[in-house]
């Protein structure tokens, strides 16, 4: 009889131990995901800081393309004004990327501008920042994938259900561009 009780105690201990482990694992993954999300802000902030310099450098050359420049400035202001996580700002940020793409495409028609060292430097910096934003989003997606898998699969699903862990959203734009090389050409 005594041994039987010991078996029960052992079984309970194992189950409780596993619960604690699974719970901690889920919490860790959740914290990691939100950390990865706020890391993206570092990169988007860098882009906000670079854009006024770019506009300043380009203004003198592009007299006839006022609206291209205005679009960039407007998109930047809108993205900055939007509150929330960088996941919630994804649409605005992608729009900003597109206006920049247009700007650099138009800049191709200005040989003087393309010979300007300052402009070239800014162009390179912005292209690199764009790459870094993509990279940071990709890291976030990898973490979210881990978390969502843990929430979905048995047996950690039980713990996730009890403590109401919810699945987190991905960056969609990244998955659409997944198949392309990381390189971004402006």
């Amino acid at each position, binding site marked *: 009889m005594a041994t039987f009780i010991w078996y029960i105690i052992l079984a309970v201990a194992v189950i409780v131990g596993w619960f604690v482990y699974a719970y901690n694992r889920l919490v860790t993954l959740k914290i990691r995901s939100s950390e*990865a999300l706020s890391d993206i802000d570092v990169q988007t902030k860098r882009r906000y800081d670079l854009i006024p310099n770019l506009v300043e450098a380009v203004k003198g050359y592009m007299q006839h393309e006022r609206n291209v420049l205005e679009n960039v400035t407007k998109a930047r202001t809108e993205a900055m004004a939007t509150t929330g996580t960088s996941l919630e700002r994804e649409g605005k940020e992608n729009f900003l990327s597109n206006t920049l793409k247009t700007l650099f495409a138009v800049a191709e028609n200005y040989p003087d501008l393309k010979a300007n060292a300052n402009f070239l430097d800014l162009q390179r910096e912005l292209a690199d920042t764009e*790459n870094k934003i993509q990279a940071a989003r*990709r890291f976030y997606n990898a973490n979210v994938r881990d978390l969502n898998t843990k929430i979905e699969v048995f047996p950690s699903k039980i713990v996730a259900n009890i403590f109401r862990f919810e699945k987190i959203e991905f960056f969609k734009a990244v998955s659409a561009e997944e198949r392309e090389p990381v390189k971004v050409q402006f």
Partner: protein
Amino acid sequence: MSLYAHKEANIRKTFLLFAVFLIVIIGIGWFFSKIYANPGILIFAVFFSVLMSFISYWYSDKIVLKISRAVPVKKENYRELYNIVENLSIAAGLPMPRVYLINEPALNAFATGRDEKRAVVAVTSGLLEKLDRSETEGVIAHELSHIGNRDMLVSTVAVVLVGFVALLSDFFLRSMFWGGLGGRDRDKGQAAGIMMIMGIALAILSPIAVTLIQLAISRSREFLADADGALLTRYPEGLASALQKISSDKTPLKAANKATNHLWFSSPSKGKVASWFMTHPPTEERIKRLREINL
């Protein structure tokens, strides 16, 4: 699959490697102290093996960089390489490793350092010249996966521990040869006898040491780093075509040697003997698996 699932296993493996090293060296010391009834030998062996373990844990990355003649690069001079490493380490969630360059025309790369904060990625100048951006990204992503998985801890520590055993065996085999030739008077004869026993013991040990490297840095680890790397760049073709270029390039890598062979991105020894002690899976197999990855 979870990020860096093999990290803990690799840290355990490193300590196992230390344990085996200590047991082997102290065991040899004990053996000889019994034979010659001299406890000094055992004390020496204990002291020596502990010292070597410390050196290999704290300094092996520096030793590896030194024997590979790698020099640190500045961001201003190698902007593209620097940006590639920076961006991929963001995607991998790793701190920015230090970037080193090996001034050689051969195409290769390696990662070292005992943890991710002290990690180093080194590439040859030939690699930078001959690979395009997406190929370089593939190679760097592979190396960063080694860092994330702590493969480079095991393999770097192994360089010093195993390299040391190989060096000793070389030394004794050589002195045995010379001792055998010059064994005229009695003193010399006895010395040659000691040398011979130790030489034989170490000659047996050093292939075991090489096998240890292979166990620690098994081939599946390279496949895993390839797959993880492809997941980072989301472009397996970049790594695949880098592998193709590297395997068709026959420039020998001067900076590599027996002890550091397993560290490199692509096996530096390209002879027939190399395939017997293979530290890397065949390139064709790696390329084939990369092309099968479905992202």
